[in-house]
């Protein structure tokens, strides 16, 4: 695991009715996460964070959820990555870190493959580890080649 420079907790709410299987849920715009390079991602369930910062109940099961992350060149850097594999609590505490890439959060999305154990108004939490663009061009340059 690489040292974490910055982290930001983001939330995707399922809405007043649970989306059907196959539905894509896009992320809202977080100004702090514009022009950043992602270095790692965690997806958290209720065992790690029971209530989201907005007061919503966090999902208890991640097995029917995948994550797709799009970079600023509209390329899929992660495609349908199983969310449960990004939960450090069931991966012996490790988080997945990536070769940094410039994230385009508003085009990235979560896919619901199975609605089992999901309830309306629950939220999925993602902890994004990142460095800002200027920092990426200096400290991460060797890794970006």
């Amino acid at each position, binding site marked *: 695991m*690489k040292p974490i420079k*910055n982290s930001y907790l983001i939330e995707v709410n399922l809405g007043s009715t649970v989306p059907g299987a196959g539905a894509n849920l896009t992320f809202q715009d977080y100004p702090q996460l514009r022009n950043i390079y992602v270095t790692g991602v965690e997806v958290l369930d209720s*065992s790690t964070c029971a209530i989201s910062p907005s007061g919503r109940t966090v999902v208890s099961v991640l097995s029917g959820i995948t994550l797709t992350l799009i970079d600023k060149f509209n390329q899929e850097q992660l495609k349908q990555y199983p969310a449960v594999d990004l939960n450090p609590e069931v991966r012996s505490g490790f988080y997945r870190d990536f070769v940094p890439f410039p994230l385009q959060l508003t085009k990235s999305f979560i896919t619901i493959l199975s609605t089992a154990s999901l309830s309306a108004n629950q939220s999925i939490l993602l*902890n994004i580890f990142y460095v800002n663009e200027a920092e990426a061009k200096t400290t991460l340059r060797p890794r970006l080649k």
Partner: protein
Amino acid sequence: MENYGNNIECIKALRVNVQLYEDITLNNKPNFRYYFPETPELNGKNIVNIKFNAGANIIDQVSVYGSTAIDLPNTIISENSKGVVQQPAGPDVTFGGIDIDKYLLLTVYNEKNQQVLSNYPCHDLAGYFRDESGFFVIDSLGKIRPFDFKINIRNSFVSTTSDISLLTVLPPIACFTFYYK
């Protein structure tokens, strides 16, 4: 520390406690901010790890604090004792079976007053993980979270999400160990 994937070595560790609330009527109010006490030793220091001290069996931490507080096995200190100031582990944050670390978020600012950790779940800093059979364990290998930033402890704070109304032990204290260089 290399075994843990963190290639930044700490030279000191310091434990800092944050008292969450004094009034029981405040314990169900979401998004309250509880700032760290003034800790000038940490300001501007390069933080390489933050440990949220938690355990499973201590209920009344007021009575155990400073006396029988458990020593956590999975700290950097135990693996990297050279030049490290050893601190006893902190008191528990489990109250009557309710793990309040699942309801606590940590926000940290750096020396430029930029948020470097925003709503970081404290449970993720506690070393609690599920084993293959689904039981929570404190991982003996110590999967610490490696960080790399300079901290401004004065502006950093712990916040609570809602729904911690079951916590009735006063005063709850969130205990962090900062490893720095």
